[in-house]
């Protein structure tokens, strides 16, 4: 198991290094002269040249990458060209806001998704099963930004219960802060539940047909014990994998949902950076989100290995 963990960690580390090179390379071939962008459209060539030297853009690419990577590891992400602020602060702020969205949605997806999957499997081919299928099918068939807008229409517009978007720091009032989270997390949860509940349902159905469940029933164990102790525990293994995949979906969903609800998190920041061609911000933003994603996948992998004795004892 320890060897497996070491291998996985080393592998992810290599992947992250390669990704950082890819991100750096792609942003290098972006059209538009960064020095010209910083100096302003009407700056003279001398000024542009001076800016180029100040930013170190005249050095060989390999040197630039090395410098960038080293300071990145040290937590210095450079300065945003547009906002004229150190990126580390900007990103930390945005990331913490996105993390709140992600964490709440993830917990809701896991709990509601697994519960719906189990309910559907237990009531296999009965009306409740079909109702769950239709509910999740609708969630998966429509993009999150559409659900976001529908929720705004219903809860912010028609009933006027919740704010249509924006963000309030928790210091300015807990309830106000919370009310700004409800619609974005509801949107994310609804679009992600389908994967979890469908997979839980099908793996639950499979384990319910297995011999050890039949055996548990034959022993005369109460149905609740059979379901929770024997069936669900084994059925959850694939669910954990799909939850990890959902982290990727969650990050994608967050980019979109933050735009819908004008929520000032990492997703909005990235879209803003790309629109404005803010090179250092794009590089840092994409790399940080990807590292978060890789680490989440790593944790899911290790968790899966830990829970699956076939791998644990291999």
């Amino acid at each position, binding site marked *: 198991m320890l060897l497996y963990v070491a291998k996985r960690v080393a592998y992810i580390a290599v*992947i*992250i290094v*390669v*990704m950082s090179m*890819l*991100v750096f390379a*792609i*942003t290098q*071939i*972006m*059209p538009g002269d960064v020095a010209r962008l910083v100096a302003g459209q009407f700056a003279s060539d001398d000024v542009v040249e001076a800016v180029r030297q100040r930013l170190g853009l005249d050095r060989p690419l390999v040197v630039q990458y090395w410098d960038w990577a080293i300071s990145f590891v040290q937590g210095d992400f450079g300065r945003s060209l547009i906002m004229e602020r150190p990126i580390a602060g900007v990103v930390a702020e945005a990331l913490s806001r996105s993390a709140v969205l992600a964490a709440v949605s993830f917990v809701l997806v896991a709990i509601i998704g697994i519960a719906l999957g189990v309910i559907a499997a237990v009531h296999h081919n009965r009306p409740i099963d079909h109702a769950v299928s239709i509910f999740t*099918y*609708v969630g*998966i*068939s*429509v*993009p*999150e*930004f*559409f659900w976001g*807008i*529908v929720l*705004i*229409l219903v809860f912010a*517009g028609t009933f006027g219960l919740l704010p*249509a978007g924006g963000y309030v720091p928790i210091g300015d009032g807990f309830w106000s802060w919370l009310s700004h989270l409800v619609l974005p997390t509801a949107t994310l949860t609804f679009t992600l539940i389908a994967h979890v509940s469908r997979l839980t349902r099908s793996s639950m159905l499979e384990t319910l047909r297995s011999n050890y469940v039949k055996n548990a029933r034959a022993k005369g164990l109460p149905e609740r014990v059979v379901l929770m102790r024997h069936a669900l525990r084994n059925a959850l293994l694939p669910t954990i994998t799909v939850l990890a995949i959902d982290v*990727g*979906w969650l*990050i*994608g969903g967050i*980019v*979109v949902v933050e*735009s*819908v609800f004008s929520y000032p998190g990492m997703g909005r920041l*990235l*879209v803003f950076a*790309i*629109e404005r*061609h803010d090179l250092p911000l*794009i590089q840092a933003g*994409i790399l940080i*989100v*990807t590292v978060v*994603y*890789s680490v989440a*996948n790593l944790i899911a992998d290790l968790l899966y290995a830990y829970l699956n004795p076939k791998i644990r004892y291999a």
Partner: protein
Amino acid sequence: MPEGSGPFARLGFDARREVPSNLIAGGSVLGVVVIVAALGPAIAPYPFDEMHIRHRLEGPSLEFLLGTDQYGRDVLSRTLVGARLSLFMGFAATALSVAVGVPLGLIAGYARGAGGELVMRAMDVLMSFPPILLGLLILALTPPSLWKAAVAVGIVYVPVIVRVTRSVTLGLAQEEFILAARARGERTWYVLLAEILPNAWPPIIVEASLRVTFAILLGAALSFLGMGAQPPSSDWGLMISDARPFINEAPWMALVPGLAMCITVVGINLFGEGLRELLDPRFARWRS
């Protein structure tokens, strides 16, 4: 080898097997969407970009059946014409994924050693990006447009196709008819193209058909973020994005294209799942 006979025997189609009902239902829905996309401007009451300035943000009426947007453009016409953009996004992106992914998957599955390993590690790197970020990263390079978004989405889903193709190829490479072909001294490319590929299609087709909806949704999300189709195009994602500031005054602006997308995606999903039931022998066994 697949059993059964008839023209589709190679794809694993068994004439004795019942055609799944969701294949029929999904196929009909998809058929309607394809017809709408093909006819597009011909059946739309107005040109998709014609502005009726006196009729801005009007609700559904006899003149404008599904209302108008902030420039007085007919929402019904725009949605009908938008069908072709959405289908283009779905099918062009998936075609690109298949065109790039299948050859790479064949190599990765058949040529063991450095080449195959390199392909899979490269795919690992691509898959380490969250899909939408990879799309944004690719699109950050140049001014956005619909076809560039389609290329980006196609690249995003290459690894999925590579993985499916590789796993089928790995299985087939051990089959007797492949060993026989190699024993005959057939060249590698002949074995791959003439022996393995024709038998590898069913799972690839199933995976690709399910990818189409992912491509449509991801493409719409990119357009929604302003990184795909550009105004005045009537892409559904862009239409919903345009509708955001007017959602309370003119909800039809978002609801109509959203519903159209929902119908399209459900149709293609049903079709893909029906296809899986038809082509995947494992699935058929589960059903019985």
